[in-house]
């Protein structure tokens, strides 16, 4: 019998084989900068009827965040809670450390499903990020319509996406978006995104594991 201990269980992130570091598209100062958000802890939380309040209190206690009741994202230093549908949220952590334990604690208050491996996430920034997204995103991302902290479930190029705007880049003042797609569609999403960003010049700074 093979010795299970000798087999390496190297995780392979959602962007493995898809993203490559470096610049592409029109040369010069990149209009879009893309960073893989790999290895996140992501879980869907669905509150039961009337149990939102208990869940909200527990979350406040555990991670210091309240449940957003409209499509937006709230963040602490470590965690984020993003609206994901009526009575549904995504709890997001920058890594998986302690994530299972956190989910276990919350389990009595909500239907919880770990989705950490099922999503491929990117952070998009740069002066042309809105122009890039406009080539497929059917939402109005103008600052007046989509302020910092807004989140949305929508589709781009026939792929479901979960999209939100985090704090502006402190250096440039440019808007910064994060976007999650289904892991299985990461390659097709990248095909659309890279084609859309090429005009403005694009830089990939982090590619994730594997």
């Amino acid at each position, binding site marked *: 019998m093979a010795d299970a201990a000798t087999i390496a269980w190297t995780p392979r992130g959602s962007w493995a084989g898809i993203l490559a570091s470096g610049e592409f598209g029109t040369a010069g100062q990149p209009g879009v900068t893309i960073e893989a958000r790999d290895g996140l802890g992501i879980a869907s939380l669905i509150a039961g009827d009337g149990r939102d309040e208990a869940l909200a209190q527990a979350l406040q206690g555990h991670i210091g965040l309240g449940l957003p009741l409209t499509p937006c994202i709230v963040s602490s230093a470590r965690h984020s809670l993003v609206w994901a549908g009526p009575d549904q949220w995504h709890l997001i952590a920058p890594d998986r450390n302690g994530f299972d334990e956190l989910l276990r604690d919350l389990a009595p208050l909500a239907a919880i499903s770990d989705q950490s491996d099922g999503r491929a996430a990117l952070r998009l920034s740069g002066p042309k990020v809105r122009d890039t997204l406009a*080539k497929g995103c059917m939402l109005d991302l103008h600052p007046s319509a989509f302020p910092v902290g807004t989140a949305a479930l929508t589709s781009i190029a026939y792929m479901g996406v979960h999209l939100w705007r985090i704090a502006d880049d402190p250096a440039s003042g440019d808007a910064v978006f994060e976007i999650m797609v289904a892991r299985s569609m990461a390659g097709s999403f990248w095909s659309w995104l890279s084609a859309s960003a090429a005009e403005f010049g694009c830089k990939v700074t982090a590619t994730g594991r594997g």
Partner: protein
Amino acid sequence: MSAKQPFRRGDGGLIDRASPVSFRFDGRSYQGYAGDTLAAALLANGVRLVGRSFKYHRPRGILSAGPEEPNALVELRSGARREPNTRATVAELYDGLEAQSQNRWPSLDFDILSINSLLAPALTAGFYYKTFMWPAAFWEKLYEPLIRRAAGLGRAAMEEDPDHYEKAFAFCDVLVIGGGPAGISAALAAGRSGARVILCDEDFRPGGRLLADKREIDARAGSEWVADALAELASLPDVRIMTRTTVLGVYDHGIYGAVERVSDHLPLPPVHQPRQRAWRITAKRAVLAAGAIERPVVFAGNDTPGVMLGGAVRTYLNRYAVLPGREAVVFTTGDDGWATARDLTAAGANVAAIVDPRPQVDAALVALGKAIGARVFAGSAVSRASGGKALKQVTIRDASGRETSLACDLLAVSNGWNPTLHLTSHQNTRPVWDEAIQAFVPGTMPAGLSAAGSAAGHFGLAEALVDGARLGSEAAADCGFAAKPLAATAKTDPDAVSISPVWRVKGGKGKAFVDFQNDVTDADVELAAREGFRPVEHLKRYTTLGMATDQGKTSNISGLAIMAEQTGKTIPETGTTIFRPPYTPVAIGALAGHHRGPDFRPMRLAPTHQWSKDLGAVFVETGLWLRGQYYPKPGEDHWLTTVNREVLAVRNGVGICDVSTLGKIDIQGNDAAEFLERVYINGWKALPVGKARYGLMLREDGFVMDDGTTSRLAETHFLMTTTTANAAKVMQHLEYCHQVLWPTLDVRMVSVSEQWAQVAVAGPKAREVLRGVVDAQHDLSNEACPYLAARNITVGGGIPARLFRISFSGELAYELAVPADHGDAMMRALMAAGAPYGITPYGTEALGVMRIEKGHVAGNELNGQTTARDLGLGRMMSAKKDFIGRVMAGREALIETERPALVGFKPVEIGQRLRAGAHFIGLGKPAAMEHDEGYMTSVAYSPVLKHWIGLGLLKNGPKRIGERVRAVDPVRNGDIVLEICNPVFVDPEGARLHG
């Protein structure tokens, strides 16, 4: 340079004389300037004959200076980039431009099919409906091919379009359509209020008629006013000016379709730039300021090259500094044409005559005529133009019928303007007739859209400025932006809008065209009236009036007027046509954008994809997924060799197959079991925790929707699996059941399909292999983990995993699921652990073979036309509970015993191949529909049985086991005899499954 451009004026115009441009037309080289259109540059070079007409192949020139052009259509570019039917009047000149005339052979100058002109008396409207019927077979063999070859216009490229396209979405408060004086005013008013504004102009240079006419606003040149206004607009942060962008259509709820020609003015699109970009603009309000289109007059020879619209003549003179002719006659039915005469003279042309049918012409105009030395023919009309390939002469007839002929090379025709109201009727509302201006104006508008300036029938410049400012402010105010007080009304030079249109001048010798491009004459309209094709849609469809690429922009009104005259009605009584989108023709590629070739639709890849790829898998599209179909080894040159090996490896040892693509839905809540009871036909409440069960769900109409195994992970927690194909459909159905039908049930569900990588580990050695990857504390023995067990376990030293003892192959089998990040490692770990057992990766083909050997149904059987009974699963239907589809499944036709039901088949002659899609016919009966007894749904070669086997739906099938039936397959010349058998071919007792 100008020596090479004999009709270019020495100065003036909005062209860039510092940027000369070379181009070719029909193989000859010419020069023009940046800022020219192809039409302007051709005229500058004295090229008059530009195309041949559709039916009669008559010589045609340039009629207009805009998108309404019916005649000057060319093939632009060459090779894979050839663009047929390109309007020379809007094609921007670029260095190296190549264009060819079209619809002529062998050459533009000498076109064989111009003999059609001789046949013209027979080729009237609709002549083809009356003949070519005998003998019947000749239509397709002779007549139609001839007609098809003669018809059509330009030649399209057959190669793949090498350029790329993209889409984009934009949002604004106020969309302004048209960049003329009204549009710019509207954009300024809205923009100054702080509203988000998009101004679209189809031209490459905003300004509209202010670029073409010598007008003054507040005592300054119109073009200067435009420049200042554009500068201000550019300074406003939320105003976007989109040139070369045509708004094509108005759709529901403030959505406007537009196409931006990003690179059409360049020899090639720059790297990383599309050729065109299709915009979907969502606007809270929109102002249509698209201007107006000038109308020609119907008279004999009115299609002769050199007959032009008066406004177009001014455009060429003033904007492009081109003389469209040196010896001109002006034919005008209103004051507007007199300005053309003035501008022509100023540009150095000789105006021989001004013909105005109005008996009384304003004395000031007459004085102007005198001043420029033109003969003035008041109360007269041009009855004929002649000259063949270039205008040589016009005939002028006065009220008494006396005719005068004058030599000339240009006839400028002005007959009033039609508001460019096309977009206002895109939602099927009809324009209304305005008697004062003798034109249709917008009727009921699409919600949120208003019309300003000429587009609203307000032809004066001052009116346009006022209109635009007012509607721009109102639109912004509707969006919540307080309008800034309007500046004092601008002062303009006087307008010339008085008009008494003449729709046609009868009696000239020769054809008088209504629709130039489709060669529809006044006689055709008369014929349509005579034959009863009087409703305007009949007129259009019978004569093809208005059906050409210009959608009748210059012809519809004349056609209506002539019909009105024939029927003794007024124009509005005769009707108006509804313009359909798009406003101008749009490249199919633009509206497809990124979605072509491999990017037509997204592709989904399993988390194990790289592993499959590394093994040299052959992949197959299943829905959006790409799955490993089989895994050939070196030397295996036929797919069946590989598949047979894979099947035998599983049956005799162990194999692994990715099943990550199955839909997985996490269902939790106090009523989760109750919910499953209602959506599945079988029972769920009694399912113990830690167990899986096969479930079947119906649609409400009683036919099967989907199947899969669902496991109870905890008292109130289930994991449902669906087929790969139906995953999204089932999720939608469950959400429907929950939210719409039973909102009070406590059930919460979410798709976890993407979270888990799942693999089937199948074969007698499956347990041993798993032992190598599952952490030691988990007992995998048959007792601890029996058939249909569902367990939370760990693998690889603490990685959470789920193990289901379920089997599609009929072997001892498990499905092991790990978080997707570990999917790749899981496959590699299993391969390592299974190496001693000869572990073999297998694909969807082998999976299919084994499920057919086991008589399991799959997509070919779950085709939406089968019932649970048809599939041999009728007994699963609980009689003790209500469930979706229960009642309708009981309808008489669904429970007839005769219904084709699932059985197995094998060839009587054992070497014969079965084919899915073959139909069953009773032995000795003719192969005809009335003897059709069902069909073969799935077939496979069973390497275990060493012959082909099949599943199929056969009338009374289960009662006919052991009998024989024919499988006829006429489309593949198949006709073989089959034995009907139990659908479970391998291990019918299920001993292996429980091993």
